[in-house]
């Protein structure tokens, strides 16, 4: 079955971000497909390359990146939500004349249309928020 996930919460603030990663791993393990993970609202912070949790806390970024590599996941960060919150790709950083970029490898910025497309193309959409 084809799943997509919508993630609205930042790592290290809400458990929902960690729940989404666990759910993604489990559905792939169970033989399902993961069409897309769409990071929206505070969820865009999952795509920040600068987060540095203490050694003894879970590194969600590393978790998403490993899963992305293994399964060629489509990890999409909403470009409008990310701009407001300061998650920028190289090209966005230069376009907006900002001093640095911080979008992590394995994630890409795209418009909200990618959420609508995920809903249309998937058998199930599961939202992680709060």
């Amino acid at each position: 079955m084809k799943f997509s996930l919508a993630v609205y919460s930042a790592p290290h603030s809400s458990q929902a971000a960690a729940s989404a990663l666990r759910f993604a791993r489990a559905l792939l393990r169970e033989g399902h497909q993961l069409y897309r993970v769409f990071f929206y609202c505070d969820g865009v912070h999952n795509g920040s390359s600068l987060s540095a949790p203490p050694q003894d806390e879970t590194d969600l970024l590393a978790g998403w990146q490993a899963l992305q590599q293994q399964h060629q996941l489509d990890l999409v960060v909403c470009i409008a939500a990310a701009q407001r919150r300061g998650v920028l790709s190289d090209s966005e950083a230069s376009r907006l004349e900002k001093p640095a970029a911080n979008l992590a490898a394995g994630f890409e910025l795209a418009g909200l249309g990618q959420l609508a497309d995920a809903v249309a193309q998937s058998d199930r959409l599961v939202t992680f928020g709060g």
Partner: protein
Amino acid sequence: MTKRILALCRQAPYGNALAREGLEAVLAAAAMDQVADLLFCGDGVFQLLPEQSPAGIGQKSLQRNLQALPLFGVEQAYVCTKSLAQRGLDLEALSQGQLPLVPVDDSAALIATYDSVLSF
């Protein structure tokens, strides 16, 4: 085959970003011909109060987003009557504008008719 999509709008406007970002997602989907229906319930019904003036708190009115919905093919919105009653509100007191509001007593039955539900 087009999917039937419901946006479940449960947040009051302005206090957090979810009400605004939810409507932006619905508008973006409609612009791509994925028209979602909307169900306002819980504190989401406060999005429909008339005469919101958020300039004093440095925000834009959400009512502009609501009134833009019909331009993108969203022709009506559902409102949970139980949520209204809990808050002492009448459907008639809400801002209808270009977006007619349809009262819903049985939100469970309504939700069951959709292929996908986006929670905001």
